[in-house]
């Protein structure tokens, strides 16, 4: 565990170069380049806004925008992590370097993208005069989000080395997770629904993304409910995922060279 951390700190230059490589490659040869990381969520927002409107759901555009942009970071990390190790087989089999740099660099490259789209998000929220009363919590929310994304990336980048079925499982898993997380709806819709038993509501908040997205809305839109304990719950769950991911990765990384 400590060895992994030491590797990361000692070889941060490699991490920086890999992050830069990931960003460059993603938009190489595309005319719109970085704007795609804005256009994709924008299209999703438009589609869901129209869908929710047509289906006569009560919705709120800033809430939808915050939800989709923050969800996008998670879904991109998960998707990219599948190829973080497998897609760099030639590096792994031909050179020795801390393998953890590969999933870590895909997460950080997506994080850079997320920060850029987050900047556009903040401009939008200023335009619609959102309430930034609780913005001081934002760093902790982002840290929780980053920890969860890293943990997930470590788990799935490792799993895909040994089981290529992971890719198919992930596309289904992402879809289910998307609807189980308050991305296009609010946590209140679940909490206030008297039809759900309390145990089911508790389960809803075990999903760390519930607390994370709700906390983003608290920090960026001044929402007061359901309160910060949910963020702490998410933080604990995210750190647990991160720990599990790091342990799995450390156990399996020596075998990457033979499997690829």
């Amino acid at each position, binding site marked *: 565990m400590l060895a992994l951390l030491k590797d990361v700190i000692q070889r941060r230059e490699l991490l920086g170069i890999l992050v830069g490589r990931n960003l*460059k490659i993603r938009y190489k040869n595309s005319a719109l380049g970085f704007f795609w990381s804005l256009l994709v969520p924008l299209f999703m927002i438009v589609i869901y806004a129209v869908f929710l409107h047509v289906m006569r759901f009560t919705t709120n555009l800033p809430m939808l925008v915050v939800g989709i942009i923050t969800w996008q970071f998670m879904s991109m990390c998960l998707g990219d992590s599948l190829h973080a190790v497998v897609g760099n087989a030639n590096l792994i*089999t*031909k050179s*020795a370097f801390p393998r953890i740099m590969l999933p870590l660099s895909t997460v950080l490259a997506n994080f850079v993208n997320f920060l850029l789209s987050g900047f556009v998000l903040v401009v939008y929220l200023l335009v619609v005069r959102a309430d930034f009363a609780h913005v001081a919590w934002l760093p902790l929310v982002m840290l929780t989000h980053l920890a969860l994304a890293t943990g997930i990336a470590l788990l799935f980048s490792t799993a895909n080395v040994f089981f*290529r*079925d992971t890719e198919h499982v992930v596309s289904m898993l992402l879809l289910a997770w998307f609807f189980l997380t308050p991305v296009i709806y609010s946590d209140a819709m679940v909490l206030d629904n008297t039809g759900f038993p309390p145990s089911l509501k508790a389960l809803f908040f075990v999903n760390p993304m519930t607390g994370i997205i709700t906390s983003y809305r608290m920090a960026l839109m001044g929402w007061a409910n359901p309160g910060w304990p949910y963020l702490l719950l998410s933080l604990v769950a995210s750190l647990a995922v991160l720990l599990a991911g790091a342990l799995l990765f450390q156990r399996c990384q*020596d075998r990457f*060279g033979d499997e690829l």
Partner: protein
Amino acid sequence: MSEPVIQVENVSKRFRLRGMGTRTFKSAALDLLLPGRAPTREFWALREVSFAVQAGETLGIIGANGAGKSTLLSLLARTRPPTSGRLATTGTVSSLLELGAGFHPDLTGRENVFLAGAVMGIPRRIMAERFASIVAFAGIPEFIDQPVKHYSSGMYVRLGFAVAVEVNPDILLIDEVLAVGDIAFQRKCLDKMEEFRQRGKTMLIISHDLATIQSISDRILLLDGGRVTGLGRPGEIVDRYKAVVRAQQAGAMRREWGSGEIRITGVDLRDRTGQARDRFAYGDLIEADVHYEARQRIENPVFGFSVATDGGMRIYGNNTQIEGHRIPEVEGRGTLHLSLGPHTLGPGTYLLSFSVHSADHRVNYHRVDHGFPILVEGDRPFEGSYMPVQWRGP
């Protein structure tokens, strides 16, 4: 003697070969539910390999394809863990397991150089200092800011080699890279490796180019089937390897058939002094003991032999009948002696065949074609069997 910088102790490497390429959930589940289903085959790429390399030494590694050479280098480069045993290296290691491995086609030459440096753990500051000499060595200044996917394969490998040698490692691992690039670049690589040697760096080199590896190595390690079958002076080990290859070649060409009343059970080749050998100089006497076994009493058998090139073309054949050596009868085991020479063969590999048949040529008892390879060494590289020549004019 200085301290060893590479120590390999009892290293073995096992690969598990599964029925189908990648493991899937289905196969994992089936393996759990039905142990014993489609047993995973094991393959030992290296078995109990031990050796040490001193600082400043150049060790050549030779062996047939699949002997474990590349696996050995990948263990030393630490891209795979050994299954058992211990490897220790002192100092920085740069590996050329594949030229330009890890280059990304969409990145420019410049970006790839810094990426490769970072992968090897060279600080950016130092890479920036060496950048000019890397570009100069690769000889592609005008293309350095182009994506490497537009490079010719020669430019690609030149840049890969340049990065690996210019990072100035203490130990350089090179896997069969002399085979790529044009003659000029190969010359440049050899010069660079010579310069490395003079600066007291340690190198491990895999190559199938035996002449080159013999000339640049201090010692040579011979691997066969994952085991060390030789480690020592280059000339000696290369000769031993060539003998192994000859035996294998002959094995592939070898044919035997016959009715079996008499069988040729073996042939021992010796020199004039009675020493067993399969290498002869021009003009040497080749002595052969032909061992046979007759299941029943056979009268007037005829023993014959022939000499063929390594391609199987017969250049000389003769037998006891033609030479008037009458054998009244044979029964049980026995040995026939043949003195051949002084021979007049040119340098190269030749395949000897032996046969035994009836006096009227109707029954072929046993025939072993191309079963016994010999190597002829000589400084006059004429072809075939020598005949006196005299040139006149013009």
